[in-house]
């Protein structure tokens, strides 16, 4: 995925544009201050969602609002093994969502993992570094899953070869 610069650049530019967040307490409920993209209470506070798709399967959904941005990623899955590896890996990461701050515990339906960035995050963290984190996260996951797949295949091959070699006569 890192080789496809246009995809990454497009994502980066879009997220940079979408991540203009300010504090905005709820208009309808007194003393509530919730991410607007999650509660969707007022139509005028949310922007049109954008999907940036590389293939039919690989895409990113960016939903922005006045005080929060939700970024959902659908990963490339060619076969069964990819599917279970990405499922396990995403479950592993979302279980640690507290540590990751901007990670959502449950991905949006149709996607594999989701981020939720609110105005509190942009106030306490550098915005460009935050965007770098999201982009690097996506690249790393792709790389990791393909490396995990390779390791499973290699191990299978070596185990089978070693076993059969012992039966050579």
């Amino acid at each position: 995925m890192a080789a496809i610069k246009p995809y990454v650049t497009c994502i980066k530019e879009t997220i940079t544009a979408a991540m203009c967040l300010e504090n905005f307490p709820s208009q309808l409920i007194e003393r509530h201050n919730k991410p607007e993209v999650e509660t969707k209470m007022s139509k005028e506070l949310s922007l049109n969602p954008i999907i940036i798709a590389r293939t039919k399967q690989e895409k990113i959904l960016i939903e922005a609002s006045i005080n929060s941005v939700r970024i959902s990623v659908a990963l490339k899955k060619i076969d069964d093994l990819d599917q279970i590896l990405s499922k396990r890996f995403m479950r592993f990461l979302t279980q640690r969502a507290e540590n990751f701050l901007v990670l959502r515990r449950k991905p949006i339906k149709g996607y594999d993992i989701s981020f939720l960035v609110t105005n509190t995050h942009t106030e306490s963290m550098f915005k460009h570094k935050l965007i770098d984190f999201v982009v690097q996260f996506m690249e790393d996951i792709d790389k990791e899953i393909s490396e995990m797949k390779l390791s499973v295949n290699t191990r299978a091959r070596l185990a089978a070869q070693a076993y059969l070699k012992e039966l050579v006569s």
Partner: protein
Amino acid sequence: MPHPLYLESINRIIRETLILKFKEKTPENVDITVADFNQCLWNIFGTQENRTLLVSASCRCWAQLQKWGAMDYLRAQYGAMIVETRPKYDITLSVEPPADPAADCTALATKVASLLRNMMAGAFHAVFDAVGKVGPVRDIPYRPMEGLWLKPEGDRVIAIFSIAFDDPDDQVIGRVFLQEFSKNVSGAPSCSISVKDPPLELQGIRGIKADGYASFLLEARHMAPRVREQTINMLLQYRNYVHYHIKCSKAYLHIRMRTRAELLLKVLNRAKGEKPDAPKKTASGRTFTRS
């Protein structure tokens, strides 16, 4: 990265316990029950009266093993050591420790610890010896959900394993592992893997349900006396070998995921930036605190 682990066919616990007992000067009471692969049980029983130990073993498929002639091999191996079976076990050996406790007794201990292996191997030996004669498919249900069949075919024998995986994720990884076995190594028995349906060799046998099947075609040279024991050893441990390596794979994946998560956290921490309560200074040195 991987180290091929040849799971031993002998039971180490039994062997080490026997060696310990052999070295004892005065006998003590002992009644140890040990579990083994494939839901098998061992028992070592001894009293203070004499140094003779009773070693018993039981496995799930003893009835079938007896039917397929395993006792012949066992009698050849243990002869007079076989005594009346203790209740709840399938076979019992009476083991006399060597008269001198200081003598090297590893050979005897190893032989006794191979009892379970020899029970299963007995059926293999019987089939190998009967090569050339037409015979039925020997079914050996050595595990609750998985089975082993030995089918004589002309001057060859086909050993068929059915493998089941509990976890749906395991099924996917298991399939990858099983497919690798179908790649031939010259000199080794050719192995064919079937993932959905039972292979043709098992046609006619009902009630089979598993996630994968492995059929090993054993030729005369694999059953030759020189290599026969090695062949049997490896075949007996096939299913456990596959499952062991799958588990190792999963553990390794877990380590990778953990490392990757830590790396990503480090990147995130870079975004956190400086501490907000560091005192800020003006050019002339005056400090002020942000309210």
